[in-house]
């Protein structure tokens, strides 16, 4: 079983000290992400989802605890190794699309793939996310959903094993949101990527292999879905 575990966090805590007040964004979290699965982290706003994901993605350091990727701890990593981890092991989709405004869709994707040794074919990935004909547009010329798809293409094209998506549908209307989710599911299946997405939208949990529920920085429930449903059938 343990060779099936891609990412594993043990006793993870993140505490912010703000003057007198201490905020525990993440508290003693234990979590395992299985290779090839589609996991959803569910929780209300402020429950620590982004904080957790950032730590898993090597974007942020925990106050306490351990994170292991393929059995190797990333916590003691120096800046250089951590950068390499982000570059080679993780594709990250930001909550706000965070595209470079002065680069076209294609260039935004290339910005990421330039760093990687065996990146996927950019045009193919852009085709997959349905932007084959908008490659040369700048973000300001695209809708929010389209921008989000560029962001996903950017994360996917790196061909990393793990895809972490922070609220990929948060800023989108229902229909566009569904399309994005379907896309992520396809990528999960087609490219055999492990996908973890964050949402505060409970129904989205139905499409996941596993649902991790958070509240106030803690994991309150982990639920395996025997029969994940098609994204198209989600309603919220």
């Amino acid at each position, binding site marked *: 079983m343990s060779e099936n575990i891609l990412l594993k966090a043990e006793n993870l805590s993140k505490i912010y000290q703000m003057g007198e007040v201490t905020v525990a964004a993440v508290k003693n979290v234990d979590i395992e992400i299985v290779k090839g699965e589609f996991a959803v982290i569910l929780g209300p706003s402020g429950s620590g989802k982004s904080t957790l994901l950032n730590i898993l993605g*090597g974007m*942020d350091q925990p106050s306490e605890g351990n994170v292991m990727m393929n059995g190797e701890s990333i916590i003691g990593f120096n800046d250089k190794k951590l950068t*390499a981890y982000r570059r080679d092991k993780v594709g990250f989709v*930001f909550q706000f699309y*965070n595209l*470079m405004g002065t*680069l076209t869709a294609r*260039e935004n994707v290339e910005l*990421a793939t330039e760093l990687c040794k065996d990146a996927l074919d950019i045009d193919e990935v852009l085709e997959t996310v349905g932007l084959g004909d908008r490659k040369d547009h700048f973000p300001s010329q695209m809708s929010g959903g389209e921008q989000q798809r560029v962001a996903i293409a950017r994360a996917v094209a790196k061909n990393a094993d793990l895809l972490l998506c922070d609220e990929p549908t948060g800023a989108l209307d229902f229909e566009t949101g569904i399309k994005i989710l379907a896309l992520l599911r396809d990528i999960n299946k087609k490219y055999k990527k492990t996908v973890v997405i964050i949402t505060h939208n409970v129904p989205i949990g139905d499409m996941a292999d596993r649902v991790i529920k958070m509240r106030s920085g803690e994991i309150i429930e982990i639920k395996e879905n025997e029969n994940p449903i098609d994204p198209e059938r989600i309603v919220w």
Partner: protein
Amino acid sequence: MKKLDKRLIRTIGHSKGQFISLVVVVIVALIVYVSFSMIAEQMYNSIFQYYRETNFAHIFVDVSRIPGNSVDELLEIEGVDQVQGRIIFDVPLRVEDPNEKVNARIISDPGTEDQINSLFILEGEGPSPGTRTTAVLKQFFVGRDMKFGDTIRPYIGGTEYSLQVVGEVGSPEYIYLMENEQTLLPDEKGFGVIYVPEEFAQSAFGFQGSYNNIVVTVDEGHENRVDIIADEIEDRLDRFGVRSVITRENHMSHSVMIQEVDSLEMMSTSITIMFLFVAAVIISIMLSRIVRKDRIAIGVLKGLGYDNKQILMHYVKYSLAIGLVGSILGVLLSIPVADMLSGVYIQYMNIPLFTGAFDIRYLFYGTLLTSVFCIASGVFGARSVLKITPADAMRPETPKAGSRMWIEGFKALWQRLTFSWKMVLRNISRTKRRAFFLILGIALTYAVTMLPVFMSTIWNTLFDRQYSQLQKMDYSIDFNIPVERNALLELQQLTDIEFIEPKVELPFELVEGWRKETINVIGVQRDTIMYGFRTASGRQIELPSKGIVLTDILARQLQVQAGDTIQINSVLPGKSDKTIQVKAVVEQYFGKNAYMDIEQMYDILEERDIATGALLMTEADVVPDLKDVKNIRGINSVQDMRDAIMEYMDLIIASMGSMMIFGGVIGFAIVYNITIVSISERMMEFSSLRVLGFDKKDIFRLVTRENALMTVFGIILGVPLGYSICVGLVDYVSTDMYTIPAVIEPFVYVYSAAATLVFVFVAQLATYRKITNLNFIDALKNRIS
């Protein structure tokens, strides 16, 4: 191309104005550095190369008369390498226009091999022994438009001689040619040097077998002992009536040239550093703003796996691009500029070995210098990239903490301010460091602008002080042989003279401790109306009946003050030395002299009622009437000197103009860039104001008001800054020959302020386009660019 580089190029494309203005600053720095440093170095080298090739003397001695064998005895002195006797006299030259006064310095040429100060033949040949031929110093040759075969006619001791021009020559002794220290500027038409065969000079001046000038060279190993050797020469020659012993260091042409080279170097260094420094500060302010704005983008890049070095480089490349583009254009432009400048120096400096060839090394140095400045400022400005973490990309920008300002403590005052003024003040206090730099930048602009305005007034002030206040005569006449005082009356019959006074002007050696200076002491009537003596504090004084009055340059060199007693030695042989009290130190801007009551002069000379010259006040042009008077050696006209300087005015105005451009470039670059940075930083704020109903003009007005306030402070700070720079410059360029009064007329301040306002205004106008072109909706929508 790397996508990050593409992003960089587009970023530059979106801030063309800023990029270009910074590139211009770099270009100016580079051009100034390359052309001025290069010319300075080449000039320095070619001067000394010239000295070596012509065997330029180390010591110059003027005596009354010395036999040739006594000259040779100087070889006994340890360290003396070669000696050579010469005959030198300044005589009038007869020219076609009878009203034109032309003097020539006749110098004897021994015609031997390896002589001291050998002639550098530019064309033709040197004067050949046994003939009445002459070689003419280039400046004079050109200034009087001479041709080989022309005859020039010096007037020596009542006889007119004819000499045939056979050569055009250069001399290390007269790279910079001036008749004397009083003339201040070269007059190539009115005064020149001609070289004649030695035996001609000896017979014409009655100096068979003897000389009145000696040049000495010193062994290579003794070059640091030149002063000691000069002293020994002076002691040995005492009985021949030593008028002056001058070392190369104090030689007029040499010291002017060295000063020229030094000031070129100083200008090159200070302007280059100033411009690069301004560029560096703007770059680092701009980059740190860009990095702050790009916080999320940087977080994203880190999230994608870019490392610190790559991201830092991304931003440093911005400044590197400025340095590179600036360097390339600067290098391209500095080639013609250096060429042009060399041309000017070749023409004015008379150093035949100075070719002004372009020196590739300087392009390399210059590029290196600008690159280092740009990279350093880039790294400094972008260094906060390192502190940004990928997690930052997830957080919205935290608004800058607003806090109350001290001024809000004055409730009554604060409440009276309009809303816009409150915004202006808040914003200034929120970005104090940048506001400070803006004020400093405007102050610098003001000071840099003030310098040329001030300098263009120098000549007028100088003339006004020297001639309207100190020397009030219109003409100063020198006789060949001293005359009876009464003889002056005869002059009055020859021409139309309003007032005339006698003077006795003779060289004396003034000694205080080991310091000594040989200068002309001028005796005039106590109640003279020709001079208006003033002390440094501006107090008018009269000549004392006993004692001597020194000019300030002289007092400084001798290190004496009013009240001290000094020794006064006649340079004529056989007169005993006396002591005399310094009664006052007076201002004199050029020339160094000492003055005393003419009656006391008679006591010292033990001779009464003579005059070596006369001072005239008249409206008339007296030169035509007096030029044939046998005993008159020279007539100095104040008007002529004024005119001579006016000829230089064009050159002065041109160089002042370019200095003004420097001020403009700096002012524009600073105001424009800082304003753009400030606008881009407050996009959100302005957008909200737009939503509230402000229009573009209102926002422009807000920004303008802020800059106007800064400009006021900047100019206030600029006044003392400009003042100290002007005074510093005056100190720096003041030489043994002249001082420049540090009098800054009030209008100089006003003009500089007006020019500064124009620069600020233009820069402000340039930002208006930025404001109207800004898309406020985009600003509200886009999180990252």
